């Protein structure tokens, strides 16, 4: 039995026991349910083995929504714990675990996959391509992310959660101060998901550079596609830094090396340095696609051409470079001289300039537009002022000498939520609502959507604005409780109320999906928003091959032009279409990585070695495999097209 002791959670509580039971029951229920309804074959054929970018995108978003609720549960618990002074709902250790998993889950397993999901669904359609450059690799990316995320999540019920913050600073993250396997989960699960993300980066750069429809020069790409290109560029060059940092952390924890230790020459601050060399670009990885989404939505519903196309592109390119030269603003208080802090203060403030340019461009697009207040547009309009507050407080933090006051207070927490939530979260919700009819051929209810919107926007501000004030008053972040004498009580209670508002908002969102799936009118047109870019030029739902005929393009809003007496998009006749084959290997590879990760977390070397061999076997299999894909004949295309045209005349 001793062998199994290691899997017990070291610091258990009724809540954790409850979750262990709930998770076990849910997993069992899913397994039994799928078996009972005989759905394994369907799942395997249509989803687990798919290499279709649209289906992969849907799976990414499903997983992201799941993780949104996991991270949301953490968040509500944190706000509940701090709602009143000297609260005893959670103890210090549990609070540590919860803010750690909240941060990791929200950034890496919610924001990232949500964005990658949307980019999977939309990018190939926007450039008139039939799939991504490497469809099989795309499936590998997804399954590595998925199994990495699952590995991270089971830490809660098997062996103990990580507890050193999402930034995992040393020495807190060392074996000395974090004895359970929690931080092993952190290092290894993120590593697995990160490798998947890196491959996504390569895949989409090649897709966008090489697979655009004829006539679509770089400067005629839709703005969302531009933002995705730049985002993936940042991914490709930032994620290797994380790979190395996590590998060194793993070695420190498992093999007794001395990278970040306090003895034998190790340097704990080196971890912070490496983490933020990745970390700052990472915040731009999650914000740039949001900028792209807003650009599409704002120009669609203001019924105007996007203002300042060129300056939008130039500012994104500038951001991609600047985002790599500002990282030290996360540790101005580390103790280096005025010289270093000065340099990084200036670069940080400089990055606000291209961001500001973009804000003005959106405002000019709205200027004199005939604005239509749909749900996606409401999110976009709310984003502009709220995000600006986040940006302005960012510039306040960027002043190194002032940051000594703000650093690690609730003011900082308010800052990054003011950029991340209106930036990334509103954007993915807006994009989700906006592109939903493209995938499912019906719209989400605008009425319920607006309820969700108002609860989320108001709830957000009520939750996070008070933190600016308590932060300036000196309330430190990550403290699990405070005394009444500090006077932080009332504003923290207000934050909790706001968090409940957010919860209600998200409940409306779920209800909307349920309600609209059952009752929303079907057979809307394939272009329900009267939009501008190519994804709306094909049928909804989109056929496997995306476009029966590859479109020809001569502007950044070719579809809009073709609707308004411009040149036709689709010329010529149907031709046989070549498509990639499905494969089960990516799924299996994901599971092997999961087993490998689990074995590494618990230092079970035999399993680790066996699964490593399994990983190499998958790679060798790929090397020797012959796979030429399959062809869709002209007759099949004609039949599909006829059916779909009937669906949305």
């Amino acid at each position: 039995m001793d062998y199994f002791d290691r899997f017990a959670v070291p610091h258990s509580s009724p809540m954790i026991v409850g979750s262990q039971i709930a998770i076990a029951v849910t997993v069992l229920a899913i397994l039994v349910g799928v078996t009972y309804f005989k759905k394994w074959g369907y799942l395997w054929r249509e989803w687990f083995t798919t290499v279709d970018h649209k289906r992969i995108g849907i799976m990414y978003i499903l997983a992201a929504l799941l993780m949104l609720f996991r991270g949301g549960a953490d968040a509500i618990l944190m706000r509940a714990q701090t709602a009143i002074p000297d609260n005893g709902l959670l103890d210090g250790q549990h609070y540590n675990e919860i803010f750690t998993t909240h941060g990791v889950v929200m950034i890496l397993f919610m924001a990232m996959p949500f964005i990658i999901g949307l980019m999977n669904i939309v990018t190939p359609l926007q450039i008139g391509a039939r799939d991504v450059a490497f469809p099989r690799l795309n499936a590998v990316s997804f399954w590595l992310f998925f199994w990495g995320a699952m590995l991270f999540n089971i830490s809660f019920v098997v062996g103990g959660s990580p507890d050193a913050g999402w930034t995992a600073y040393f020495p807190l993250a060392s074996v000395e101060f974090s004895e359970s396997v929690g931080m092993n989960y952190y290092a290894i699960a993120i590593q697995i998901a990160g490798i998947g993300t890196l491959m996504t980066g390569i895949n989409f750069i090649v897709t966008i550079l090489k697979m655009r429809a004829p006539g679509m020069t770089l400067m005629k790409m839709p703005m969302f596609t531009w933002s995705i290109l730049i985002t993936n560029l940042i991914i490709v060059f930032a994620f290797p830094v994380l790979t190395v940092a996590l590998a060194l952390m793993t070695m420190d924890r498992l093999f007794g090396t001395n990278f970040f230790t306090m003895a034998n020459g190790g340097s704990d601050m080196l971890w912070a340095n490496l983490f933020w060399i990745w970390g700052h670009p990472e915040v731009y990885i999650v914000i740039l696609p949001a900028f792209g989404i807003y650009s599409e939505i704002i120009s669609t519903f203001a019924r105007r051409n996007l203002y300042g196309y060129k300056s939008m592109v130039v500012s994104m390119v500038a951001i991609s470079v600047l985002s790599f030269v500002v990282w030290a603003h996360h540790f101005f208080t580390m103790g280096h001289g005025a010289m270093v802090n000065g340099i990084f203060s200036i670069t940080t403030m400089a990055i606000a300039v291209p961001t500001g340019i973009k804000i003005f461009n959106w405002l000019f697009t709205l200027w004199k537009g005939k604005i239509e207040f749909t749900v996606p547009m409401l999110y976009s309009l709310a984003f502009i002022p709220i995000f600006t507050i986040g940006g302005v407080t960012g510039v306040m933090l960027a002043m190194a000498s002032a940051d000594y006051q703000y650093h690690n207070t609730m003011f900082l927490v308010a800052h990054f939520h003011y950029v991340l939530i209106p930036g990334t979260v509103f954007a993915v919700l807006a994009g989700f609502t906006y592109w939903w009819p493209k995938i499912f051929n019906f719209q989400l209810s605008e009425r319920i959507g607006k309820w969700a919107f108002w609860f989320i926007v108001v709830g957000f501000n009520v939750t996070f604005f008070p933190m600016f004030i308590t932060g300036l008053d000196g309330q430190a972040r990550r403290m699990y409780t405070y005394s009444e004498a500090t006077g932080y009580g009332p504003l923290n209670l207000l934050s909790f109320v706001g968090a409940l508002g957010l919860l209600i908002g998200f409940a409306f969102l779920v209800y909307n999906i349920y309600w609209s799936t059952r009752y929303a009118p079907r057979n809307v047109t394939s272009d329900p928003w009267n939009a501008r870019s190519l994804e709306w030029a094909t049928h909804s739902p989109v056929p496997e091959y995306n476009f029966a005929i590859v479109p020809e393009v001569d502007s950044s809003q070719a579809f809009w032009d073709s609707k308004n007496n411009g040149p036709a998009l689709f010329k010529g006749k149907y031709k046989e279409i070549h498509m990639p084959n499905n494969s089960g290997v990516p799924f299996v590879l994901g599971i092997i990585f999961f087993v490998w990760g689990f074995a590494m977390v618990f230092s079970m070397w035999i399993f680790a070695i066996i699964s490593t061999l399994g990983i190499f076997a998958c790679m060798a299999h790929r090397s020797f495999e012959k796979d030429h894909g399959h062809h869709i004949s002209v007759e099949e295309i004609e039949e599909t097209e006829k059916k779909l045209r009937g669906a949305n005349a």
Partner: protein
Amino acid sequence: MKIDNSLPLEYSTEENRLKILGFWIFLGAEIALFATLFATYFTLVNRTGNGPIGADIFEVTPVLIETILLLTSSFTIGLGINAMRHGSKNAMMVFFIITLALGAGFLGTEIFEFKHYVHIGAGLQVSAFTSILLTLLGTHGAHVTLGLFWGLFIVLQVKKRGLTPETTNKAFIYSLYWHFLDVVWIFIFSFVYLKGMM
């Protein structure tokens, strides 16, 4: 599959061209990866704790042997690709096998070197410096090891399937990888060993 005969076989299909560009971008990521390891090395090089410093443990001879083996292998794989472009399957295979043999020689010397380090008290756990030294060298060594297997698979495939758009594409991409490992080694040779012995 549309084949463009005006281009070398490895570039002849759209899929092949996508793969080559994709691999270049992967190499960009690899540059960032090794740069991070170098950054860590330069930060920790003087943090030797109670362990040895570089000058105590580095020796010219094995390092020079490794360098010459790897540089030569980079030359021979270049010749292999050249032969492949002339359509000479046999010459290509000979050059590839020579490359793999040189690579194996490199790896053998490196393993010998590692054993020596552990033996003289410069093992992985001794100090921040030895940790990053062996990790940097080890990451490069692991890449070479992977490369040896990959190269072997390619030789087997060329032998069985001949020079097709697929096999030539794999071989070409593999040659990019191998040259890249050579470049990384040059930087290790210069800024780890020579700088350390200076």
